[in-house]
Protein backbone atom coordinates (compact mmCIF):
# COMPACT_ATOMS: atom_id res chain seq x y z
CA UNK A 1 0.00 0.00 0.00
CA UNK A 2 2.74 2.37 1.03
CA UNK A 3 4.91 1.50 -1.93
CA UNK A 4 1.96 1.94 -4.31
CA UNK A 5 1.32 5.39 -2.85
CA UNK A 6 4.99 6.29 -3.17
CA UNK A 7 5.09 5.15 -6.79
CA UNK A 8 1.99 7.21 -7.56
CA UNK A 9 3.49 10.28 -5.92
CA UNK A 10 6.74 9.79 -7.76
CA UNK A 11 4.92 9.29 -11.04
CA UNK A 12 2.85 12.41 -10.62
CA UNK A 13 5.86 14.41 -9.49
CA UNK A 14 7.96 13.27 -12.43
CA UNK A 15 5.23 14.14 -14.89
CA UNK A 16 5.11 17.64 -13.44
CA UNK A 17 8.85 17.83 -13.64
CA UNK A 18 8.69 16.72 -17.23
CA UNK A 19 6.19 19.45 -17.99
CA UNK A 20 8.44 22.06 -16.51
CA UNK A 21 11.21 21.04 -18.81
CA UNK A 22 9.27 21.09 -22.01
CA UNK A 23 9.92 23.06 -25.14
CA UNK A 24 7.20 25.33 -26.48
CA UNK A 25 6.87 26.87 -29.89
CA UNK A 26 4.65 28.86 -32.19
CA UNK A 27 4.67 29.89 -35.83
CA UNK A 28 2.26 32.72 -35.19
CA UNK A 29 4.06 35.03 -32.83
CA UNK A 30 3.37 38.73 -33.36
CA UNK A 31 6.21 41.18 -33.59
CA UNK A 32 5.27 44.80 -33.98
CA UNK A 33 7.29 47.96 -33.91
CA UNK A 34 6.53 51.60 -33.33
CA UNK A 35 8.25 54.80 -34.31
CA UNK A 36 6.70 57.80 -32.59
CA UNK A 37 7.53 61.37 -33.54
CA UNK A 38 5.60 64.62 -33.46
CA UNK A 39 5.30 64.46 -37.26
CA UNK A 40 4.18 60.91 -37.79
CA UNK A 41 3.58 57.65 -35.98
CA UNK A 42 4.71 54.61 -37.89
CA UNK A 43 3.89 51.06 -36.96
CA UNK A 44 4.12 47.67 -38.54
CA UNK A 45 3.30 44.14 -37.54
CA UNK A 46 4.31 40.64 -38.50
CA UNK A 47 2.06 37.85 -37.25
CA UNK A 48 4.14 35.02 -38.60
CA UNK A 49 7.20 35.06 -36.40
CA UNK A 50 8.66 31.77 -35.25
CA UNK A 51 9.35 31.36 -31.57
CA UNK A 52 10.79 28.58 -29.43
CA UNK A 53 11.00 28.71 -25.66
CA UNK A 54 12.91 25.86 -24.10
CA UNK A 55 12.19 25.66 -20.39
CA UNK A 56 14.81 22.99 -19.83
CA UNK A 57 17.75 24.96 -21.13
CA UNK A 58 16.17 28.38 -20.41
CA UNK A 59 16.64 29.31 -24.04
CA UNK A 60 14.53 31.55 -26.19
CA UNK A 61 14.69 32.05 -29.92
CA UNK A 62 12.67 34.17 -32.31
CA UNK A 63 12.96 34.45 -36.05
CA UNK A 64 10.97 36.74 -38.29
CA UNK A 65 10.97 37.54 -42.00
CA UNK A 66 11.48 41.25 -42.64
CA UNK A 67 9.27 41.10 -45.75
CA UNK A 68 6.37 39.92 -43.61
CA UNK A 69 5.99 43.24 -41.76
CA UNK A 70 2.76 44.95 -42.75
CA UNK A 71 2.45 48.71 -42.74
CA UNK A 72 -0.49 51.02 -42.96
CA UNK A 73 0.92 52.43 -46.19
CA UNK A 74 1.98 49.95 -48.84
CA UNK A 75 4.57 52.36 -50.15
CA UNK A 76 6.13 52.68 -46.74
CA UNK A 77 6.37 48.90 -46.57
CA UNK A 78 8.20 48.88 -49.88
CA UNK A 79 10.64 51.55 -48.75
CA UNK A 80 11.16 49.77 -45.44
CA UNK A 81 12.27 46.67 -47.34
CA UNK A 82 14.14 48.43 -50.14
CA UNK A 83 15.88 51.32 -48.46
CA UNK A 84 15.98 50.80 -44.74
CA UNK A 85 16.19 47.09 -43.87
CA UNK A 86 17.47 45.89 -47.26
CA UNK A 87 15.49 42.70 -46.86
CA UNK A 88 16.86 41.14 -50.04
CA UNK A 89 20.28 41.12 -48.42
CA UNK A 90 19.16 40.57 -44.82
CA UNK A 91 15.87 38.68 -45.00
CA UNK A 92 15.49 37.80 -41.31
CA UNK A 93 15.67 39.28 -37.86
CA UNK A 94 16.70 36.76 -35.21
CA UNK A 95 16.68 36.98 -31.45
CA UNK A 96 18.58 34.41 -29.44
CA UNK A 97 18.53 34.65 -25.71
CA UNK A 98 17.88 33.02 -22.40
CA UNK A 99 16.11 33.62 -19.13
CA UNK A 100 18.56 35.02 -16.60
CA UNK A 101 17.25 32.69 -13.91
CA UNK A 102 15.86 29.15 -14.15
CA UNK A 103 12.17 29.10 -15.01
CA UNK A 104 10.19 27.77 -12.04
CA UNK A 105 8.30 24.54 -12.57
CA UNK A 106 5.28 25.20 -14.73
CA UNK A 107 2.01 23.43 -14.29
CA UNK A 108 -0.11 24.10 -17.33
CA UNK A 109 -3.36 23.61 -15.41
CA UNK A 110 -2.52 26.26 -12.85
CA UNK A 111 -3.13 29.90 -13.81
CA UNK A 112 0.01 31.87 -13.16
CA UNK A 113 1.96 34.91 -14.34
CA UNK A 114 5.74 34.95 -14.22
CA UNK A 115 7.94 37.94 -14.82
CA UNK A 116 11.39 36.91 -15.95
CA UNK A 117 14.50 38.75 -17.00
CA UNK A 118 15.77 37.92 -20.45
CA UNK A 119 19.09 38.66 -22.07
CA UNK A 120 20.23 37.83 -25.52
CA UNK A 121 21.19 39.22 -28.87
CA UNK A 122 19.19 40.59 -31.77
CA UNK A 123 20.49 40.19 -35.30
CA UNK A 124 18.95 42.75 -37.62
CA UNK A 125 20.18 44.29 -40.88
CA UNK A 126 23.26 42.08 -40.60
CA UNK A 127 24.28 43.44 -37.20
CA UNK A 128 24.08 41.65 -33.84
CA UNK A 129 23.62 43.63 -30.65
CA UNK A 130 22.82 42.61 -27.07
CA UNK A 131 19.28 43.05 -25.74
CA UNK A 132 18.20 42.99 -22.11
CA UNK A 133 14.54 42.98 -21.33
CA UNK A 134 11.76 41.49 -19.26
CA UNK A 135 9.38 38.82 -20.45
CA UNK A 136 6.04 38.00 -18.93
CA UNK A 137 5.02 34.36 -19.12
CA UNK A 138 1.37 33.73 -18.55
CA UNK A 139 -0.38 30.44 -18.00
CA UNK A 140 -4.11 30.80 -18.27
CA UNK A 141 -6.74 28.15 -18.97
CA UNK A 142 -4.14 25.59 -20.03
CA UNK A 143 -2.57 28.05 -22.46
CA UNK A 144 0.93 29.38 -22.09
CA UNK A 145 2.00 32.62 -23.76
CA UNK A 146 4.71 35.21 -23.43
CA UNK A 147 5.01 38.94 -24.11
CA UNK A 148 7.90 41.35 -24.05
CA UNK A 149 8.77 44.93 -24.99
CA UNK A 150 12.10 46.50 -25.67
CA UNK A 151 13.65 49.39 -27.54
CA UNK A 152 16.38 49.51 -30.11
CA UNK A 153 18.33 52.33 -31.70
CA UNK A 154 18.32 52.45 -35.51
CA UNK A 155 21.94 53.63 -35.42
CA UNK A 156 22.96 50.42 -33.58
CA UNK A 157 21.87 48.42 -36.59
CA UNK A 158 23.26 50.79 -39.22
CA UNK A 159 19.78 51.67 -40.47
CA UNK A 160 20.21 55.07 -42.05
CA UNK A 161 17.46 57.64 -42.19
CA UNK A 162 17.90 60.42 -44.76
CA UNK A 163 17.86 63.93 -43.32
CA UNK A 164 14.73 64.88 -45.31
CA UNK A 165 12.59 62.40 -43.38
CA UNK A 166 14.65 62.58 -40.20
CA UNK A 167 11.83 64.26 -38.31
CA UNK A 168 9.24 61.64 -39.12
CA UNK A 169 11.22 58.56 -38.13
CA UNK A 170 12.20 58.08 -34.51
CA UNK A 171 15.80 57.20 -33.72
CA UNK A 172 14.52 54.80 -31.10
CA UNK A 173 12.10 52.07 -32.12
CA UNK A 174 9.87 50.28 -29.69
CA UNK A 175 9.42 46.58 -30.33
CA UNK A 176 6.58 44.50 -28.94
CA UNK A 177 6.64 40.74 -28.94
CA UNK A 178 3.65 38.53 -28.25
CA UNK A 179 3.81 34.78 -28.78
CA UNK A 180 0.05 34.27 -28.28
CA UNK A 181 -0.58 30.63 -27.40
CA UNK A 182 2.49 28.44 -27.38
CA UNK A 183 2.31 24.82 -28.42
CA UNK A 184 4.25 22.09 -26.69
CA UNK A 185 6.94 20.60 -28.90
CA UNK A 186 6.90 16.84 -29.19
Amino acid sequence: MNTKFLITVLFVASSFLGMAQNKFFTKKASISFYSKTSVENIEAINNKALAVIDMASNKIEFSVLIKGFEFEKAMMQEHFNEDYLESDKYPKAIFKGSFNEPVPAINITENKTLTLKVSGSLTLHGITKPINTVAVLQIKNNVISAVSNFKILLSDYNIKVPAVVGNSISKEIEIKVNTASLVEMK
Partner: protein
Amino acid sequence: MKRILLLMIAAFSLEQIVAQDTTSMVSGLEDKITSEKVTGTFRSTRVINSHSTEMLHKGEMDFRILHRFGSVKTGYKNLFGLDNASMRLSFDFGITNNFMIGIGRSTLLKDIDIFAKTRILQQTKGENEMPVSFLVAGGYIVTTQESLAPKNPTIVDRSSYYLQMIIGRKFTPDFSMQLSPMVLHNNTTLNATDDQTIIGLGGGMRYKVSQRIAIVLDYNYAIGKLDATIKNPLSVGVDIGTGGHVFQLHFSNATGMNEKGYLTQTTGDFFKGDVRFGFNLSRIFRIGKKQKTASQYLLPTLKEK
Protein backbone atom coordinates in the same frame (compact mmCIF):
# COMPACT_ATOMS: atom_id res chain seq x y z
CA MET B 1 51.00 26.03 -15.72
CA LYS B 2 47.84 26.58 -13.77
CA ARG B 3 47.18 29.75 -15.75
CA ILE B 4 47.57 27.94 -19.03
CA LEU B 5 45.20 25.25 -17.82
CA LEU B 6 42.68 27.87 -16.77
CA LEU B 7 43.02 29.62 -20.09
CA MET B 8 42.50 26.36 -21.90
CA ILE B 9 39.40 25.62 -19.86
CA ALA B 10 38.15 29.12 -20.54
CA ALA B 11 38.84 28.73 -24.24
CA PHE B 12 37.04 25.41 -24.35
CA SER B 13 34.02 26.69 -22.49
CA LEU B 14 33.95 29.75 -24.71
CA GLU B 15 34.06 27.51 -27.74
CA GLN B 16 31.16 25.58 -26.32
CA ILE B 17 29.15 28.77 -25.86
CA VAL B 18 29.88 29.83 -29.40
CA ALA B 19 29.04 26.38 -30.69
CA GLN B 20 25.74 26.42 -28.82
CA ASP B 21 24.97 29.80 -30.23
CA THR B 22 25.15 28.63 -33.80
CA THR B 23 22.56 25.92 -33.28
CA SER B 24 19.16 27.26 -34.12
CA MET B 25 16.05 26.05 -32.38
CA VAL B 26 13.71 27.62 -34.90
CA SER B 27 15.38 26.33 -38.06
CA GLY B 28 13.21 23.21 -38.13
CA LEU B 29 10.04 25.27 -37.95
CA GLU B 30 10.56 27.34 -41.05
CA ASP B 31 8.08 26.91 -43.84
CA LYS B 32 9.32 26.91 -47.39
CA ILE B 33 8.51 30.13 -49.18
CA THR B 34 6.43 29.07 -52.16
CA SER B 35 5.98 32.47 -53.72
CA GLU B 36 7.31 35.84 -52.69
CA LYS B 37 6.62 39.02 -54.63
CA VAL B 38 9.64 40.80 -56.02
CA THR B 39 9.08 44.49 -55.41
CA GLY B 40 10.98 47.67 -56.13
CA THR B 41 12.08 46.78 -59.64
CA PHE B 42 12.11 50.47 -60.46
CA ARG B 43 11.77 53.38 -58.11
CA SER B 44 8.88 55.03 -59.89
CA THR B 45 6.04 54.17 -62.26
CA ARG B 46 8.14 55.62 -65.09
CA VAL B 47 11.71 54.67 -65.94
CA ILE B 48 12.23 58.27 -67.06
CA ASN B 49 9.74 58.81 -69.88
CA SER B 50 8.54 55.24 -70.45
CA HIS B 51 6.11 53.33 -68.28
CA SER B 52 7.99 51.03 -65.90
CA THR B 53 6.97 47.74 -64.29
CA GLU B 54 6.06 49.63 -61.12
CA MET B 55 2.46 50.29 -60.16
CA LEU B 56 0.88 52.59 -57.65
CA HIS B 57 -0.77 50.80 -54.78
CA LYS B 58 -4.49 50.97 -54.28
CA GLY B 59 -5.55 54.35 -52.96
CA GLU B 60 -2.36 56.18 -53.88
CA MET B 61 -2.16 59.33 -55.95
CA ASP B 62 1.07 60.27 -57.65
CA PHE B 63 1.51 63.97 -58.42
CA ARG B 64 4.26 64.32 -60.96
CA ILE B 65 6.02 67.45 -62.14
CA LEU B 66 8.28 66.93 -65.13
CA HIS B 67 10.66 69.50 -66.56
CA ARG B 68 12.76 69.46 -69.69
CA PHE B 69 14.98 72.45 -70.27
CA GLY B 70 16.44 73.69 -73.54
CA SER B 71 19.37 72.11 -75.31
CA VAL B 72 22.65 72.44 -73.41
CA LYS B 73 24.19 73.19 -76.83
CA THR B 74 22.70 76.68 -76.72
CA GLY B 75 25.55 77.54 -74.38
CA TYR B 76 26.04 80.04 -71.60
CA LYS B 77 23.88 82.73 -73.23
CA ASN B 78 20.91 80.47 -72.60
CA LEU B 79 22.38 79.17 -69.33
CA PHE B 80 22.86 75.82 -71.06
CA GLY B 81 19.19 75.54 -71.83
CA LEU B 82 17.84 76.46 -68.42
CA ASP B 83 16.24 79.60 -69.91
CA ASN B 84 13.69 77.46 -71.70
CA ALA B 85 11.56 74.95 -69.92
CA SER B 86 8.94 72.52 -71.05
CA MET B 87 6.68 70.95 -68.48
CA ARG B 88 4.29 68.11 -67.92
CA LEU B 89 2.04 67.96 -64.90
CA SER B 90 0.20 64.77 -64.15
CA PHE B 91 -1.94 62.99 -61.64
CA ASP B 92 -1.87 59.20 -61.52
CA PHE B 93 -4.17 57.11 -59.40
CA GLY B 94 -3.86 53.55 -58.09
CA ILE B 95 -7.34 52.04 -58.48
CA THR B 96 -6.27 48.58 -57.37
CA ASN B 97 -2.78 47.22 -56.74
CA ASN B 98 -2.78 46.02 -60.35
CA PHE B 99 -4.61 48.80 -62.17
CA MET B 100 -3.81 52.46 -62.43
CA ILE B 101 -4.92 55.43 -64.51
CA GLY B 102 -3.45 58.85 -65.09
CA ILE B 103 -3.95 62.20 -66.75
CA GLY B 104 -1.29 64.69 -67.72
CA ARG B 105 -0.79 67.89 -69.60
CA SER B 106 2.35 69.03 -71.36
CA THR B 107 3.24 72.58 -72.30
CA LEU B 108 4.75 71.24 -75.54
CA LEU B 109 1.93 71.49 -78.13
CA LYS B 110 -0.44 71.74 -75.14
CA ASP B 111 -0.86 67.98 -75.20
CA ILE B 112 -3.30 66.31 -72.88
CA ASP B 113 -2.72 62.62 -72.29
CA ILE B 114 -4.56 59.92 -70.45
CA PHE B 115 -3.52 56.34 -69.84
CA ALA B 116 -4.40 53.13 -68.08
CA LYS B 117 -1.89 50.52 -67.02
CA THR B 118 -2.48 47.05 -65.68
CA ARG B 119 -0.21 44.39 -64.26
CA ILE B 120 -0.95 40.93 -65.56
CA LEU B 121 2.00 39.03 -64.10
CA GLN B 122 4.05 39.89 -61.06
CA GLN B 123 7.63 38.65 -60.71
CA THR B 124 7.93 36.27 -57.78
CA LYS B 125 10.61 34.08 -56.30
CA GLY B 126 10.38 30.88 -54.32
CA GLU B 127 9.10 27.50 -55.41
CA ASN B 128 6.47 28.91 -57.74
CA GLU B 129 8.81 31.31 -59.43
CA MET B 130 7.62 33.83 -61.99
CA PRO B 131 10.71 35.20 -63.72
CA VAL B 132 9.25 38.44 -65.06
CA SER B 133 6.57 41.03 -64.50
CA PHE B 134 4.27 41.65 -67.41
CA LEU B 135 2.17 44.78 -67.80
CA VAL B 136 0.05 46.38 -70.47
CA ALA B 137 -0.46 50.11 -70.85
CA GLY B 138 -2.64 52.02 -73.27
CA GLY B 139 -3.16 55.69 -73.74
CA TYR B 140 -4.61 58.54 -75.71
CA ILE B 141 -2.96 61.87 -76.45
CA VAL B 142 -4.65 64.96 -77.89
CA THR B 143 -2.87 68.09 -79.03
CA THR B 144 -4.81 71.20 -78.06
CA GLN B 145 -2.43 73.79 -79.48
CA GLU B 146 -3.89 75.74 -82.38
CA SER B 147 -2.45 76.34 -85.87
CA LEU B 148 -1.76 72.78 -86.81
CA ALA B 149 -1.99 71.75 -90.44
CA PRO B 150 -4.56 71.09 -91.84
CA LYS B 151 -6.35 74.24 -90.79
CA ASN B 152 -8.99 73.78 -88.13
CA PRO B 153 -8.12 70.12 -87.46
CA THR B 154 -10.80 68.10 -85.75
CA ILE B 155 -10.22 66.39 -82.43
CA VAL B 156 -9.71 63.17 -84.38
CA ASP B 157 -6.95 64.79 -86.46
CA ARG B 158 -5.19 65.90 -83.31
CA SER B 159 -5.34 62.51 -81.62
CA SER B 160 -2.72 59.82 -81.00
CA TYR B 161 -3.13 56.39 -79.47
CA TYR B 162 -0.69 53.86 -78.11
CA LEU B 163 -0.64 50.36 -76.72
CA GLN B 164 2.40 49.09 -74.88
CA MET B 165 3.62 45.89 -73.27
CA ILE B 166 6.14 46.02 -70.47
CA ILE B 167 8.21 42.98 -69.61
CA GLY B 168 10.62 43.55 -66.76
CA ARG B 169 12.76 41.68 -64.30
CA LYS B 170 14.68 42.55 -61.19
CA PHE B 171 17.78 40.48 -61.76
CA THR B 172 19.56 41.32 -58.52
CA PRO B 173 18.56 43.63 -55.66
CA ASP B 174 20.51 46.32 -57.51
CA PHE B 175 19.97 45.62 -61.18
CA SER B 176 16.65 45.70 -63.05
CA MET B 177 15.84 45.74 -66.74
CA GLN B 178 12.72 45.98 -68.86
CA LEU B 179 11.66 45.82 -72.48
CA SER B 180 8.62 47.78 -73.56
CA PRO B 181 7.48 47.42 -77.17
CA MET B 182 4.79 49.88 -78.18
CA VAL B 183 2.54 50.59 -81.12
CA LEU B 184 1.81 54.27 -81.57
CA HIS B 185 -0.60 55.79 -84.05
CA ASN B 186 -0.63 59.51 -84.82
CA ASN B 187 -3.56 60.79 -86.84
CA THR B 188 -1.50 63.80 -87.76
CA THR B 189 2.25 63.40 -88.09
CA LEU B 190 4.90 66.01 -87.44
CA ASN B 191 6.32 65.71 -90.95
CA ALA B 192 4.18 64.97 -93.98
CA THR B 193 6.30 61.95 -94.92
CA ASP B 194 6.21 60.29 -91.49
CA ASP B 195 4.36 57.02 -91.03
CA GLN B 196 1.23 57.34 -88.96
CA THR B 197 1.85 54.04 -87.18
CA ILE B 198 5.23 53.68 -85.54
CA ILE B 199 6.53 50.79 -83.49
CA GLY B 200 8.74 51.71 -80.59
CA LEU B 201 11.04 49.18 -78.95
CA GLY B 202 11.68 50.46 -75.48
CA GLY B 203 14.42 49.41 -73.14
CA GLY B 204 14.94 50.51 -69.56
CA MET B 205 17.57 49.78 -66.97
CA ARG B 206 18.24 50.62 -63.38
CA TYR B 207 21.36 50.08 -61.33
CA LYS B 208 21.34 50.98 -57.66
CA VAL B 209 24.60 52.56 -56.59
CA SER B 210 23.46 53.09 -53.01
CA GLN B 211 20.34 52.44 -50.97
CA ARG B 212 18.59 55.49 -52.37
CA ILE B 213 20.44 56.44 -55.52
CA ALA B 214 20.22 54.59 -58.78
CA ILE B 215 21.43 55.15 -62.31
CA VAL B 216 18.64 54.82 -64.86
CA LEU B 217 18.60 54.53 -68.61
CA ASP B 218 15.58 54.82 -70.89
CA TYR B 219 15.78 54.23 -74.63
CA ASN B 220 13.30 53.78 -77.46
CA TYR B 221 14.08 52.52 -80.93
CA ALA B 222 11.51 53.63 -83.50
CA ILE B 223 10.57 51.31 -86.37
CA GLY B 224 8.71 52.96 -89.25
CA LYS B 225 9.31 55.79 -91.62
CA LEU B 226 10.21 58.97 -89.79
CA ASP B 227 11.93 62.08 -91.07
CA ALA B 228 15.75 62.11 -90.81
CA THR B 229 15.50 64.91 -88.26
CA ILE B 230 13.66 62.60 -85.83
CA LYS B 231 16.00 60.77 -83.46
CA ASN B 232 15.47 57.88 -81.11
CA PRO B 233 14.94 59.16 -77.58
CA LEU B 234 17.63 58.33 -75.05
CA SER B 235 17.63 59.47 -71.46
CA VAL B 236 20.24 58.80 -68.79
CA GLY B 237 19.88 59.92 -65.23
CA VAL B 238 19.83 59.27 -61.54
CA ASP B 239 16.92 58.36 -59.29
CA ILE B 240 16.98 59.74 -55.78
CA GLY B 241 14.34 58.42 -53.44
CA THR B 242 13.51 59.88 -50.06
CA GLY B 243 10.36 58.63 -48.44
CA GLY B 244 7.35 59.65 -50.50
CA HIS B 245 9.40 61.69 -52.98
CA VAL B 246 11.30 60.51 -55.99
CA PHE B 247 13.61 62.88 -57.84
CA GLN B 248 14.84 61.86 -61.22
CA LEU B 249 17.57 64.05 -62.67
CA HIS B 250 18.67 63.27 -66.17
CA PHE B 251 19.94 64.25 -69.56
CA SER B 252 17.77 63.45 -72.52
CA ASN B 253 17.48 64.36 -76.17
CA ALA B 254 13.70 64.23 -75.92
CA THR B 255 11.57 67.21 -75.01
CA GLY B 256 8.27 65.41 -75.30
CA MET B 257 7.11 63.73 -72.14
CA ASN B 258 4.27 61.67 -73.49
CA GLU B 259 4.55 58.63 -75.79
CA LYS B 260 3.84 60.57 -78.98
CA GLY B 261 6.19 63.35 -77.97
CA TYR B 262 9.26 61.31 -77.12
CA LEU B 263 8.91 58.62 -79.78
CA THR B 264 8.01 60.67 -82.85
CA GLN B 265 8.95 64.27 -82.04
CA THR B 266 12.48 64.04 -80.67
CA THR B 267 14.86 66.08 -82.80
CA GLY B 268 18.04 66.31 -80.77
CA ASP B 269 20.94 63.95 -81.41
CA PHE B 270 22.11 62.64 -78.05
CA PHE B 271 25.58 61.72 -79.28
CA LYS B 272 26.15 65.14 -80.86
CA GLY B 273 25.58 66.78 -77.52
CA ASP B 274 22.08 67.96 -78.35
CA VAL B 275 20.76 66.99 -74.95
CA ARG B 276 18.73 68.77 -72.37
CA PHE B 277 18.72 68.63 -68.63
CA GLY B 278 15.49 67.50 -67.08
CA PHE B 279 13.96 66.34 -63.88
CA ASN B 280 10.94 64.38 -62.79
CA LEU B 281 9.52 64.96 -59.37
CA SER B 282 7.07 62.46 -58.00
CA ARG B 283 5.19 62.86 -54.77
CA ILE B 284 2.86 60.10 -53.68
CA PHE B 285 -0.15 60.89 -51.55
CA ARG B 286 -2.48 58.41 -49.95
CA ILE B 287 -6.08 59.30 -50.72
CA GLY B 288 -7.75 55.93 -50.23
CA LYS B 289 -8.21 53.76 -47.17
CA LYS B 290 -5.12 52.62 -45.33
CA GLN B 291 -4.18 49.03 -44.72
CA LYS B 292 -4.73 47.34 -41.40
CA THR B 293 -2.23 48.52 -38.83
CA ALA B 294 -0.53 46.96 -35.87
CA SER B 295 -2.78 48.61 -33.33
CA GLN B 296 -5.85 47.47 -35.23
CA TYR B 297 -4.92 43.88 -34.59
CA LEU B 298 -6.20 42.90 -31.20
CA LEU B 299 -3.03 42.13 -29.38
CA PRO B 300 -3.56 40.80 -25.89
CA THR B 301 -1.00 42.61 -23.81
CA LEU B 302 -0.10 41.40 -20.39
CA LYS B 303 0.60 43.79 -17.62
CA GLU B 304 3.44 43.21 -15.24
CA LYS B 305 2.39 42.78 -11.66
